[in-house]
């Protein structure tokens, strides 16, 4: 066993962004999402991920904006730390060590220097008993601070962050768990509890699911499992509290949120309908239906102009306050299981798997972004739990990516399985897949395997599907069309069976001349040209699990794994067993562009990986304990550019990359040192400022526009900042007679000055952050504007504050480096060319 120090298993993309409520910055420009072990910062205008805040060593469980500084954010994690970040630059400012795993974090402006975290204080005694604890954050210059001053506020709280909320500027805190609503008034230092009966008259559950507090009024809204919303009032005494009930949702209310002015209440649930209730006129409500998937969280931007809903399909939708969807940030959709295998789209080189119900998702691994969803089922999805609907269970691409075959299935209790086989043709004009043929009920029972013939020279494309009804069918494209307007469609070419056994796997040889179908413990090899049964191979007594032909020079080998932990390799020239070895292979797959094969073996609760060539006795690479649990899905993805690694053990990664899904649905991959170095080098250039349009032209002319639009709009910029050509100012400049304008030399010097500022100014003041520079620049340029009021009055001092606290974290060399990067940024130029 060779040690491979330079090959590592890393998480790669596709992390959850809907785990916790997204947090919006005060200027509504950025969205902070807890995503795995990091916090992702998205731009609300471009929906791109600006940067990741990395540093936590375990799942991030909560993010909040620091109430006293709107440019900093706290995040808490299950690793027992709270970290303070400067999210505009992605810099870790401070780490507070709590010592116990934290489940959520809350803060309020009226409690300065204190954050409230939910943690299990007595982890050893009762791990399920959680407490809300006030943590006094010590003031200290150190990076790493241990927070010692903990005081319990409420005991026995829910781990769900939606169940705890501050009310009315931090006067009280409301917490729900089970059937109990608890309100703690800070002024009185007193907690009141209100209980509900377990079931209401119709036998539906009354359990609290979420809570929200009115920002101006003493009113608490709670959501319940039976779809009701209760509005609690007069709760600052034990006896005379009241509540009113609103009911629209038919199943549990998963999230509630008041708008900042308190005029509206937003609610959402599994129905995927955003409901807007008018406060105090609750019979007036507005709906935004069909948001795609169950709503898990709702947030409103601080100025109330944008709503953000995160959904169970790993999506965040940005909604304007007029209930119009403006954008969506979509992550990799991962359900409980991947029913279709992982696949590579040969055209876009994207990862393909089933995503939203009834859809196939195309996910770019390079850009870590969802490209698009292909609607396979084409039916209205009914958002109701317990309803059996069509699911995409199988999919396959042909070698060129021209054809896609999908199988959708709907199983109903007491009824036979409904199956549809659909064949999609790639349309060059629209650059998407277009439905060509639908075959309803292609088999009488569930389809167990499906594959395309992968030979490139073959003229006709062929698809083989195996089913539990004991048959396998070959489908072929009809060459001739009967009339001109009719396009060629697919039809069945051959039906095969073997001793009424159930076929499990099927595989075409590399040249497409042979088809291997495994019937329980027997492998049958068929000629695709004449559909003759050529030979049978078997290794009893257990059924074949995986079947795979070798590629290139090893194409004479057929590999199979059996249920009794055997990996067999047959030579098809001699029709005999070449070699076999005993290992519990859970997954066997071949690299499409090399001879290499990968086998994931289960051993003692974790999975080992072996990479080998069928013709060679020694494995090329092996790694023990790749991940805990069983690996059932993996894929070789061809690289865009080849790596030049000369080390023997990592050569198999040169041309393709191996991705796999763990039991917990994490997408992992193997990287080499060479690749990591390259990534590090490229990531330095990747730090892009979001305000792309902040060009010297903008500095010169953009302020005129800002004056025009006034302060109301300055905070938010959901639409892209218009480029200076279209602005009123430049028209003025071009249309006004030359003799009225100031002299060219004056304009020129202004222009040149604006160019110089970024280089000279920060050096004097020793400022680090870019945000700082922007506001600085604005101040510099808008002397005359100051009389009418600056555009962002609160931002400048805040920015300075941020910079001061960030200052010790940066060495002088780092500052210089940052400045260099800033100078290199020529993205505004591209922006100009585009328009």
């Amino acid at each position, binding site marked *: 066993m060779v040690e491979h120090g330079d090959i590592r298993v890393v998480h790669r993309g596709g992390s959850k962004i809907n785990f916790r409520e997204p947090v919006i910055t005060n200027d509504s420009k950025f969205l902070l999402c807890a995503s795995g072990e990091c916090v992702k910062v998205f731009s609300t205008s471009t929906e791109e991920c600006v940067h990741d805040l990395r540093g936590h060593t375990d799942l991030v469980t909560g993010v909040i904006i620091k109430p006293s500084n709107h440019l900093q954010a706290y995040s808490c994690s299950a690793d027992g730390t709270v970290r303070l970040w400067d999210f505009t630059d992605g810099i870790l400012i401070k780490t507070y060590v709590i010592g116990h795993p934290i489940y959520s974090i809350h803060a309020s402006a009226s409690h300065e220097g204190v954050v409230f975290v939910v943690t299990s204080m007595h982890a050893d005694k009762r791990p399920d008993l959680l407490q809300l604890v006030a943590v006094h954050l010590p003031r200290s210059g150190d990076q790493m601070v241990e927070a010692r001053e903990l005081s319990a506020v409420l005991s026995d709280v829910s781990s769900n962050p939606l169940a705890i909320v501050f009310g009315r500027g931090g006067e009280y805190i409301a917490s729900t768990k089970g059937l109990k609503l608890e309100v703690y008034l800070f002024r009185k230092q007193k907690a009141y509890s209100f209980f509900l009966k377990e079931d209401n008259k119709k036998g539906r559950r009354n359990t609290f699911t979420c809570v929200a507090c009115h920002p101006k009024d003493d009113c608490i809204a709670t959501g319940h499992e039976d779809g009701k919303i209760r509005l609690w009032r007069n709760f600052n005494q034990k006896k005379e509290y009241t509540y009113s009930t609103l009911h629209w949702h038919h199943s549990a209310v998963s999230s509630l949120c008041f708008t900042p002015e308190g005029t509206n209440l937003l609610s959402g649930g599994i129905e995927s309908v955003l409901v807007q209730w008018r406060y105090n006129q609750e019979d007036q409500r507005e709906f*935004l*239906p*069909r*948001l*795609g998937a169950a709503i898990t969280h709702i947030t409103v931007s601080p100025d109330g102009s944008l709503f953000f809903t995160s959904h169970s399909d790993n999506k965040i939708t940005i909604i304007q306050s007029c209930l119009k*969807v403006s954008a969506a940030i979509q992550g990799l959709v991962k359900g409980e299981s991947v029913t279709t295998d992982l696949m590579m789209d040969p055209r876009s080189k994207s990862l393909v798997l089933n995503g939203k119900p009834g859809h196939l998702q195309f996910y770019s691994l390079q850009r870590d972004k969802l490209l698009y969803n292909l*609607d396979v089922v*084409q*039916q*209205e999805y*009914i958002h*109701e739990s317990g*309803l059996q*609907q*069509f699911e995409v269970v199988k999919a396959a691409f042909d070698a060129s990516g021209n054809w896609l075959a999908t199988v959708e299935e*709907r199983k109903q209790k007491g*009824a*036979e399985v409904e199956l549809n086989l659909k064949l999609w043709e790639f349309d060059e004009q629209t650059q998407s897949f277009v439905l060509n*043929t*639908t*075959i*309803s*009920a292609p088999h009488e029972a569930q389809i167990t395997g499906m594959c395309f013939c992968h030979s490139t020279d073959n003229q006709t494309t062929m698809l083989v599907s195996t089913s539990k009804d004991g048959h396998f*069918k070959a489908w072929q494209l009809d060459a001739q069309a*009967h*009339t*001109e307007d*009719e396009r060629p*469609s*697919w*039809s*069945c*070419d*051959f*039906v*095969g*069976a*073997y*001793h009424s056994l159930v076929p499990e796997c099927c595989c075409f040889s590399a040249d497409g001349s042979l088809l291997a179908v495994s019937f329980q413990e*027997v492998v*049958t090899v068929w000629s695709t040209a004449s*559909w*003759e*049964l*050529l*030979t*049978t*191979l*078997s*290794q*009893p007594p257990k059924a074949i699990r995986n079947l795979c032909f070798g590629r290139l020079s090893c194409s004479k080998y057929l590999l199979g794994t059996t249920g009794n932990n055997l990996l067999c390799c*047959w030579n098809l020239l*001699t*029709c*005999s*067993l070449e070699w076999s070895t005993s290992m519990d292979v859970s997954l066997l797959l071949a690299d499409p562009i090399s001879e290499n094969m990968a086998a994931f073996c289960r051993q003692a609760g974790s999975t080992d990986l072996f990479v080998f060539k069928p013709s060679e006795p020694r494995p090329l690479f092996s790694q023990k304990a790749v991940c805990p649990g069983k690996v059932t899905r993996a894929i070789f993805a061809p690289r865009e550019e080849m790596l030049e690694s000369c080390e023997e053990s990592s050569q198999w990664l040169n041309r393709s990359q191996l991705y796999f899904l763990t039991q917990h649905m994490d997408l992992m991959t193997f990287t080499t040192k060479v690749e990591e170095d390259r990534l590090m080098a490229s990531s330095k250039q990747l730090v892009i400022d979001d305000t792309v349009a902040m060009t010297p032209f903008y500095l010169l002319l953009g302020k005129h526009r800002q004056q025009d639009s006034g302060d109301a709009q300055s905070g938010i910029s959901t639409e892209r900042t218009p480029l200076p050509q279209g602005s009123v100012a430049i028209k003025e400049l071009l249309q006004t007679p030359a003799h009225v304008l100031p002299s060219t030399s004056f304009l020129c010097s202004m222009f040149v000055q604006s160019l110089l500022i970024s280089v000279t100014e920060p050096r004097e003041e020793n400022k680090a952050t870019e945000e700082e520079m922007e506001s600085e620049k604005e101040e510099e340029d808008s002397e005359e504007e100051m009389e009418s009021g600056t555009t962002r009055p609160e931002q400048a001092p805040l920015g300075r504050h941020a910079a001061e606290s960030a200052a010790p974290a940066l060495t002088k060399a780092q500052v210089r480096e940052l400045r260099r990067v800033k100078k290199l940024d020529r993205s505004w130029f591209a922006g100009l060319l585009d328009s």
Partner: protein
Amino acid sequence: MASFKPTKIQVYPKLGEKVTQDTLYWKNYKAPVQIKEFGAITNIDFSPVAPHNFAVTAFTRVHIYGPFSQEPVKTFTRFKDTAYSGRFRSDGQLLVAGCEDSVVRLFDVSGKVALRMFKGHTKAVHVTDFTSDSYQILTGSDDYTCRLWDIPNATELNTYQEHTDYIRCGVTSKLNRDLFITGSYDHTLKMFDARLDKSVMTMDHGHPVENLLLYPSEGLLVSAGGRYVKVWDLLKGGQPLVSMKNHHKTVTCLSLGSNGQRLLSASLDRHVKVYNTTNYKVVHNFDYAASILSLGLAPDDESIVVGMTNGILSVKHRKSPEESKETSGQQRRKPSYRVFVKGKNYVPKQDDYLVSKPVKQHLAKYDKQLKRFNVSKALDTALETWLRRRKPEITVAVIKELDRRGTLKNALAGRDEQSLFHLLNFLIGNLVDPRFAPVLVTTAEMILDIYRSVIGQSPVVDRQLLRLQDLLEREIDYQKDLLEVLGMLDTMFASSIPRKEVPCSGISRSNGLGQGEASTSRPQLQAT
């Protein structure tokens, strides 16, 4: 916000023939014009010159019809008995016809009285034709002879007595004035050369020959007799080329269409079949009301004329290109469309700010109800009379969609007598349709579950339920019979497929797995 996805209406493949270029071409005819003649129509001949009148021989008359007239433009009635085989000369000026009384008469197309009478045959003359030099006439008769006549003198030139049975068909060469071919009930075709005294070629058709046809190139000869249509290669000395058996009764008439690209054959089984002359496959089929005796095709397939035993002449005219387009165009454009077009082609100027108007999604009535989750109303709209009768697949698709949403029970419940009657009526009409059966059987079960308690309260509903029960019993019997037939077929197929030895590797044999017998079968019918 994604838009509402309308209910998917399953498109079922049309059973029966596939739509091909040929079916489109041959279907592009207007409704037939039917003309009643006095007796069985034995022959139809088109004039070779424009306007391509055609002569129809029926009973004791020969009628000449214009291309579009429904009344005969000319009638020849000077026959003592049944007339046969009225044919035009190549210039369209003269017409010859045989008769039961063995006299052959020659007419001027514009005149009335016979110009010449050719007497010499002793029995009915069923075959008459002009030779290609247009000065001679060929006749064939039931007295087993065929004769050549000179038109100017009305004298007999030659007699051939080689056939041993009635001569019922004959054709002259259009390229050589001396060649002609006759077919007889003695199963033979004989080719004669007028310069010689005997036949030059004899071919055996195997059945009494009813009709003959020469290709325009005259290299191929087509003969019809019995249920067979046979093609002979004359240039290879009368070698049989193809034999086609597509009719199930005697083929009576042959014709060439589409400039020799298609061959048409008519038969007593009331069908006209169209063959492709390159591969001799049937590409289209026409059905008629009675047994067909004669068939004529106007040049360029402008019309198809068919004469039947019951004396009805059916004339089908080809649709003009405008007409065939109009029918499809009318459905697309509705009168109110123009209102919405207003301002659509306005090109925005440079400074204009474009406010894009959201495209309004058009939804069907039942989809509108489904969108609002009004399940009962959705089912009501889907059960409207028109949809129920004309497009049962839409009704079934809506029922399926309701079932998928888990609300079919709610939609079916709470109906009054009238709507339940309609629902049951629909079920009775479509339950046994294999395309709809899986959906409708569950629906029927649900209806029975829901309304079990009220059975017996309404005589109307009870009657429907009894009908449903009756229908199901019949269907079950039918399915049983089908299964029996299937079992019989399976045994037949199994015995007809030769057992094949499968080469086995050493391992599999040593493991005691005998040679695998592969049961393979071609798919029967695939829905695409």
